[in-house]
């Protein structure tokens, strides 16, 4: 078979779109982000419990007392897990994606229901959108819409579009043909036939579609979290990246609360909106548990709570005290740092966030997966990141994006890549020993992401060098999975062979043994580099100089990492601040200000 260069065509298609259609993407981005900011602003304005109250009154009105109480309890739980802002940001993201998805899918579904040709054309497109792995669409989405909300919303939207279209089409097709004929026989215009007969009767099915749109949107927030949308999805990603099971569970519970609330509310709304559903609901004998207030009561409840919320917003403590000082170099200038949730990345990122904020900059930090991070940096949406392992581990990224990036130099090194076993594996000390112990490890090397630089190096060079090609198989996976496997084996004292690198917290948590590399197959080790977007140092000469001069000792880095680990999720910056306070003079050393 001749090789079909489909991938190349897609590549050049994407390039062309980025080059020529950017005005369109910018417009879409502006609309999406505007909607998101507006909704997020409204959701985060009132005190959490007040908004929980408003949401509970809505649940009470739509479903009854029980639902109201449970809704309040659920949102109070989210607040008590300190996930409120993240949950609201996720809610805003899902709402924006849902609104746009419905604005697109309902008309498309109506059109497909009326024309067999449209239906036949739309169906394969929906199949593609629904089944194409989302990460495949995510990177182009970043190229088109940039990092953050817009790309996340679009990725969510694409996935959630299909059920909206399908259920709308189905609902309209299901309406009894005789009813449509009756409408026509009485001279109804096609438009009124749609609005007065088909849509009202299709409404229950369409609302089931809306429900599915929302649920699929929620299931996508974790994926969207990889491109820096933050929210609960970002929290889950952070937790996965750091093998923080507890925090991951908490964030997951937050998503579940949102999902259940939105699911029950949309299905109840479907009943309320449809005249038939309303009648059916009216026939059910109310119990105290399902007692529902009249709409007027509910509206009054919501308005009162909203007014209270607005009042506290106005009279509440106003934040944002500004203090001018001699060290205010940044004067509020905004700097965006991106990071991958690896320990040295988190430590150095929050270190610089703290330092730069002390110097008067306004710093935002967002976490990404490696691919989106480099894409964002190369397209100038991020200012810098501190965790590139060069020249070896991140060689692929450097090759692809190096021309669009500036290297601000190494701040830590040398690092090392290695294969590692627990110390209780006695007779294996060097890579050369592995050949005879393949059986002990089941012939398996537990690897990380196949895209990682060290995996390429391992497969193409290290195994050959020590003649392990035939006897060992490298298991591709992910860093969290590798660490989880290590943790499991370690707890049972089973032999295990993993890919690992230094610095890594695993070395302080577990008693591990780096296998010696007498042949030097792993190379001489990387330095951890700070990379910035092209021209960042020219735009911010002072920060550029600080970053170029920055370096950390191993003691400093592991100490800071340990402090952050101890402080726990969401308190990284506090940990950095405490750590810096214990080491006076460090800030001035790393970010000197000439008076």
């Amino acid at each position, binding site marked *: 078979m001749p090789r079909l260069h489909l991938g190349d065509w897609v590549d050049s298609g994407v390039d062309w779109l980025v080059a020529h259609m950017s005005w369109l993407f910018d417009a879409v981005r502006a609309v999406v982000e505007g909607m998101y900011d507006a909704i997020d602003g409204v959701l985060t304005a009132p005190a959490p419990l007040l908004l929980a109250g408003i949401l509970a009154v809505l649940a009470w009105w739509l479903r009854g007392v029980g639902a109201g109480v449970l809704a309040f309890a659920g949102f109070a739980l989210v607040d008590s897990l300190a996930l409120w802002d993240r949950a609201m940001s996720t809610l805003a993201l899902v709402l924006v994606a849902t609104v746009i998805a419905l604005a697109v899918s309902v008309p498309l579904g109506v059109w497909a229901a009326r024309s067999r040709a449209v239906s036949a054309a739309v169906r394969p497109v929906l199949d593609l959108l629904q089944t194409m792995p989302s990460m495949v669409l995510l990177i182009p989405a970043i190229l088109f819409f940039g990092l953050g909300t817009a790309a996340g919303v679009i990725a969510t939207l694409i996935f959630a579009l299909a059920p909206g279209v399908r259920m709308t089409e189905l609902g309209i097709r299901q309406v009894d043909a005789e009813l449509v004929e009756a409408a026509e*026989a*009485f*001279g*109804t215009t096609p438009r009124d036939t749609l609005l007065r*007969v088909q849509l009202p009767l299709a409404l229950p099915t369409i609302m089931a579609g809306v429900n599915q749109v929302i649920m699929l949107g929620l299931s996508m927030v974790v994926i969207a979290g990889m491109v820096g949308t933050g929210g609960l999805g970002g929290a889950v990603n952070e937790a996965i990246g750091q093998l923080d099971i507890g925090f991951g569970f908490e964030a997951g519970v937050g998503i579940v609360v949102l999902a259940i609330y939105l699911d029950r509310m949309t299905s109840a709304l479907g009943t309320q909106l449809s005249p038939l559903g309303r009648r059916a609901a009216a026939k059910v004998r109310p119990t105290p548990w399902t007692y529902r207030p009249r709409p007027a009561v509910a509206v009054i409840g919501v308005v009162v709570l909203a007014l209270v919320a607005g009042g506290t917003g106005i009279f509440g403590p106003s934040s944002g005290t500004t203090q001018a000082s001699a060290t205010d170099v940044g004067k509020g200038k905004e700097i965006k740092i991106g990071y991958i949730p690896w320990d040295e990345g988190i430590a150095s990122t929050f270190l610089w966030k703290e330092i730069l904020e002390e110097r008067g900059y306004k710093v935002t930090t967002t976490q990404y997966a490696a691919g989106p991070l480099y894409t964002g940096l190369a397209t100038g949406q991020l200012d810098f990141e501190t965790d590139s392992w060069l020249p070896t581990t991140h060689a692929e990224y450097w090759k692809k994006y190096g021309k669009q990036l500036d290297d601000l130099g190494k701040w830590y090194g040398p690092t090392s890549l290695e294969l590692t076993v627990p110390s209780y594996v006695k007779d294996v000390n060097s890579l050369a020993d592995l050949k005879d112990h393949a059986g002990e490890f089941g012939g398996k090397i537990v690897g990380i992401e196949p895209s990682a630089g060290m995996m390429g190096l391992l497969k193409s060079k290290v195994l050959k060098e020590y003649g392990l090609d035939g006897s060992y198989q490298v298991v591709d996976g992910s860093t969290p999975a590798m660490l989880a496997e290590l943790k499991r084996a370690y707890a049972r004292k089973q032999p295990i062979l993993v890919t690992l690198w230094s610095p890594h917290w695993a070395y302080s948590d577990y008693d591990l043994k780096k296998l010696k590399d007498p042949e030097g197959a792993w190379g001489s080790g990387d330095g951890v580099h700070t990379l910035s977007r092209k021209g960042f140092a020219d735009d911010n000469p002072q920060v550029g100089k600080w970053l170029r001069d920055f370096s950390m000792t191993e003691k400093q880095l592991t100490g800071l990492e340990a402090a952050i680990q101890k402080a726990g999720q969401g308190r990284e910056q506090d940990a950095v601040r405490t750590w810096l306070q214990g080491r006076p003079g460090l800030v001035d050393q790393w970010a000197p200000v000439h008076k």
Partner: protein
Amino acid sequence: MSPRLETEHLYKVFGRRTDDSVERLRQGADREELRADGTTAAVIDASVRVEAGEIFVVMGLSGSGKSTLLRTLNGLLEPTAGRVRFDGQDLGELTDRELRELRSKKISMVFQHFALFPHRSVRDNAAYGLAVQGVPRAERDRRAGEALALCGLAGWEDSWPDELSGGMQQRVGLARALATDADLLLMDESFSALDPLIRRDMQDQLLELQKTLKKTIVFITHDLNEAMRLGDRIAVMRDGRIVQTGTAEDILLRPADDYVASFTQDVDRSRVLTAAAVMDTDVQGDEADCGCATAAPGTPFTELCALSARLPHPVAVLDANDGVVGVVPRQRLVGFLAEEAGEPLECDGGRKVTARA
């Protein structure tokens, strides 16, 4: 004077290359040949004339094309060839907008399965046509209420269609059609889905309403008894063609072919026939001089039997001017019931004729 509604050589063919198909049908091809090519000829060369104020019944088995014919009458289906004229206006010349206007004001329709809107109350269903016309709500409700009262549903306005029995639902369907004051009512097997008893009720009610309303009604049915009961004139359709058009008596007494004749076998003749159909018109003019009870040409068959049973001689039939127009011997009544048209035989040697069971 032109009829209220008229079709001229109407064809309706579904499928591909419909024009070719019409040409082939004109040259005598039959339905089966076309079906092999994947086209369906639903209506073939149908010409009907419906006069103002009459109930015109189109009767045929399912698949005979009667419902398709009905839907060309209000433009729901566009004829492949031929014309439909309503009040002299060719429907094919109307724009979509004009056609909708016509349907909303002058032609209304009653459906087999009622086709009530389940998301509208009984009142709103009855008022639907008026809502389409844009009649203000107060007037719309008043007129819908009147139409419902006319159909015997006063007091049910605020109910919902699914709370009513089948017969009541169809009354709502009828009220919806009457509320717009349309002159032409198209009724598509409107009573077929109802129980036999309810069906009779509805037929009676329709006839009762028609006495005062004098609408022009085209009624589709597959039930010949219903056709005979309701129809001033009846068109019998078979395989897309109209095989006979005439009064109930025409169909019954002078079937156009064996197909129609076989259809009429099960019909209860006593309900259809009148004195005019069974009388012997060979009269002298003095048959009524005895002063016994007489019949009129429109006297129903059953009444005629009752008269005949009380009289020792044939019943005389008088016209409006008391002139004798015919006589009905008892023998003839019995013969019609049994479809035995021959003259009585001579009795053979005093032996009794025994019926062979």
